[in-house]
């Protein structure tokens, strides 16, 4: 039977799922089993709209799970806020899972009944930019694309005709395409904060492309897998040492890339210039509140401290809204990048917030969204 800490390779027993779902359909099968066997009542999945768009839906319909979009690199949405059902299973990138954990700390998610299947993620891309990139860099008609994958630092697209074309991420990012900025410096690629950490890194040999590597992180992970095995939905085998080593190696490559980006993006701004820098960054804010609305670490409703005491008539040199949010997020920001994505004035909100959060979280040796530890700002006694 399965135990915490196990590393396995698995795939769906259903050929249809196995062929349709990414990497052998393990995650889809585990989700379907969780729903079928009553381990959960609902599942959060991405409903496919186009090759470049999907919408999260909460469903108890197995068919919706089977038809779901799987992992799409061009859907940079954070699922955390959709996991508010009482008894839910959710597949997600590390940042999705981090969001759910932050929501759980704020009593929005019952973590004991939320089953979190983590998916390795090297980063996501913007749909519109990606289409532009396909035309300009790959010379592929975006409509022809049927799938994409990141392998060995290359971003590979498959087309209708079955052709594959890959270009190195470095090259793409050099040209201003590629992953979202927050993904570039993200330092959690394998979602070890989830119940299961799944992905295709470490799947080698004949199973390559047809199975999923999965690490069991906790008891909930055990339940998820055992449930799916009992239901006959999946088959698993222990991962070989070589597989484990390869997964680790891929992860390390990704992390060292992140570190490089981090250094590049977070160059120190000298003491005398920071105030002006931040004032200028926020000057174009139109007070739409979208950054707060999408923030997976925030559980406030529409009226909250950041909005209630923020008046446009005050004409401050810096936004009260952002000051309060900077404070509230300095320990809780998970760096998912959603705020930057939705900012209509293209303010690099995430990058600014990370400047504060990186320092705070490092100081308190706390990383938001990884464990259920109470955020340091909310501690009663100083650490």
């Amino acid at each position, binding site marked *: 039977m399965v135990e915490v800490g196990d590393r396995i390779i698995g795939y769906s027993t259903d050929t249809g799922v196995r062929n349709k779902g990414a990497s052998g359909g393990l995650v889809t099968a585990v989700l379907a089993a969780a729903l079928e066997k009553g381990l959960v009542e609902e599942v959060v999945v991405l409903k496919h709209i186009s090759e470049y768009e999907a919408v999260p839906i909460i469903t108890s319909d197995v068919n919706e799970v089977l038809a779901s979009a799987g992992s799409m690199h061009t859907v940079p949405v954070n699922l955390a806020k959709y996991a508010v059902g009482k008894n839910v299973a959710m597949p997600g990138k590390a940042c999705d899972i981090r969001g759910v954990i932050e929501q759980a700390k*704020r*009593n*929005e998610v019952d973590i004991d009944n939320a089953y979190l299947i983590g998916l390795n993620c090297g980063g996501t891309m913007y749909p519109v930019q990606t289409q532009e990139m396909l035309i300009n860099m790959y010379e592929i008609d975006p409509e022809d694309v049927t799938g994409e994958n990141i392998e060995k630092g290359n971003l590979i697209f498959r087309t209708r005709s079955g052709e594959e074309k890959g270009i190195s991420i470095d090259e793409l990012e050099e040209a201003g395409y590629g992953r979202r900025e927050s993904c570039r410096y993200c330092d959690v690629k394998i979602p070890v904060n989830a119940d299961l950490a799944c992905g295709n890194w470490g799947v080698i040999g004949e199973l390559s492309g047809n199975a999923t590597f999965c690490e069991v992180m906790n008891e909930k992970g055990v339940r998820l897998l055992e449930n799916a095995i009992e239901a006959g939905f999946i088959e698993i085998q222990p991962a070989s040492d070589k597989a484990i080593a390869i997964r680790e190696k891929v992860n390390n490559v990704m992390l060292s890339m992140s570190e490089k980006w981090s250094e590049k993006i977070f160059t120190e701004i000298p003491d005398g210039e920071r105030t002006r820098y931040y004032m200028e960054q926020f000057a174009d804010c139109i007070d739409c509140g979208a950054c707060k609305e999408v923030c997976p670490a925030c559980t*406030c409703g529409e009226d909250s401290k950041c909005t209630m005491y923020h008046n446009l008539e005050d004409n401050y040199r810096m936004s009260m809204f952002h000051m309060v949010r900077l404070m*509230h997020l300095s320990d809780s920001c998970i760096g998912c990048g959603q705020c930057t994505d939705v900012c209509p004035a293209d303010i690099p909100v995430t990058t600014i917030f990370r400047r504060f959060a990186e320092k705070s979280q490092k100081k308190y040796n706390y990383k938001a969204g990884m464990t259920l530890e109470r955020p340091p700002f909310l501690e009663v006694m100083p650490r």
Partner: protein
Amino acid sequence: MDEPRIGVFICECGVNIGGVVDCQKVADYAGTLPDVVRSSVNKYTCSDSGQSEIKQAIKDNKLNRVLVAACTPKTHEPIFRACVEEAGLNPYLFEFVNIREHCSWIHMQEKEEATEKACELVRMGVSRSSKLEPLQSNEVPVTDTALVIGAGVAGMQSALDIADMGYKVYLVEKNPSIGGKMAQLDKTFPTNDCSICILGPKMVEVARNKNIELMTYSEVEEVDGYVGNFKVKVKHKARYVDVDTCTGCGLCVQKCPVEVPNTEFNEGIGTRKAIYVPFPQAVPLRAVVDRSVCIDCGACSRACSSNSVIMEQEDSFSELDVGVIVVTAGFDVYDPEPTHDFGYGLYDNVITGMELERLINASGPTMGKVVRPSDVKPPKKVGFIQCVGSRDKKRNRYCSSFCCMYALKDAQLIREKYPDSEVYIMYMDMRTPFRNYEEFYDRARDMGIRFIRGKPGKVTEVENGDLKVRVEDTLTNDIIDLDLDLLVLSVGAVSGESTERIRQILKVSRAADGFMMEAHPKLKPVDTTLDGIFIGGVTQGPKDIPYSVSQGSACAARASRYLAQGKAITEGITVDVNDDICVACGICVPMCPFQALSLEDGKLNIIKALCKGCGTCAVACPTGALQQNHFKNDQLLAQVKNVFTFGEE
């Protein structure tokens, strides 16, 4: 709420304010501020005429807010709140601005700046005043029983007073007998009457009082709830003796083969058995078994004619519902052992004052014979060192208050018992306030006791356990080498471990000296910041017997106000939650040290009676749904905003 109509009253406070601040100018300025309908200057706003002017103005100008700019709210806010309340205004619609301590007195040379600052302070106050909301204090019913923790002399007095007023009292004592430290003392200053002789009858009175339920050898384990509605869990430690049938005859004690030092009552001098009666006058006069040394031989059981020894007994618990709690948990005597103060613990003949009490006591281990430990011979030359463990930056900074007097008493007793002895008291200052204390000091001098003003530097043991003490007499600047047989350290009081445990259970504040903190050093000396919990005796800080007894009575009086009224008025400034905004994230819950907050059915629940109105939860609240009344965010931010003006103003 109607449109704010603020009346502003600027107080000159004689020349205290008026001598620096141009009060008329401030009043004129206040008149131009939004919502202010009248403003004026008074000579003394707090005087009768000042107060009647406020009341008149409330009527004449239909004021619904009053602002007084005068001295500090810490002393005068209650006065003005009462004043506006008499005129029919909610007291929380009164706003106080401090232009004396915070302005005129600290800017005495800069009159112009002071006036300008006063204007700004008034403007800040006015902006806050506009946003004030009326508040109501809450009423909660009070269970008409009291809990007194600790049955020393203060606790006994308190229990008796409450009981005599007709209320049921649970008196919980951790030791097998009541009596506390006073039962250990020999004589009491300044009358030198026998301690147990005056305490004994009181102890019996406590036992006999029908309204007092005595719980000895018992400890308070948990306290929940709030004023009027405390739930208390008490542990009754197994005594292994049936209290109801034991007669305290002592036959069992005689048969018991185990003998150990008597640390409980005789400060380790002499011995007691594994089964023992605490002391001859103990109440209840019942035996108790020390199972940590008992060898289970069964001798006591066989000796007992009433079959009162029950070795199977286990700790039991009771749950009490009480309305008020009086804490008279007492203190510990300062222990010089760990730091070997003046050779204590190293040299046999250095003893503490408490040890001397037991030695000198006629019913003590030596039957009142003062002997020195090394050779059990009466000492010829006795020295006392004062302020041991007290008034010492490295130990405790405070004065333990009773050591001077007990040293004088013990010195006199030694001189009386052994007229040929020499007695020295080495002191920093002799502190002898209150009736007949100074006379007592005079008597000691008359009796030939020698006083040396100085704290000894070094104590060394010479042969036969004799001691050499070097002390500088700071009055004569002479270095004196005293050869002594016995050295008594006049040790002070410290808040003991068990008192600290009670403090933590009750969540009473701790003062810097480690004792429990009163609500106000002058005006609420036996209240705590927690409604319905009172502190008396040395629990609150070192004091002598009369003062402890007074505090015991004071606690009883303060506590029975609740019992007599049957209701308690709780803090008006509490937190409130706006359910429309609250997302029930629960972040605030662990922030409250008073357990006033909880999440119930996805909603935040506030027990108003537990809330003390500190507002720390409101800061943790990310949504701003939780607001501290009277210090709401918009009230505070209005003040912040009005610190500043457009430069041209």
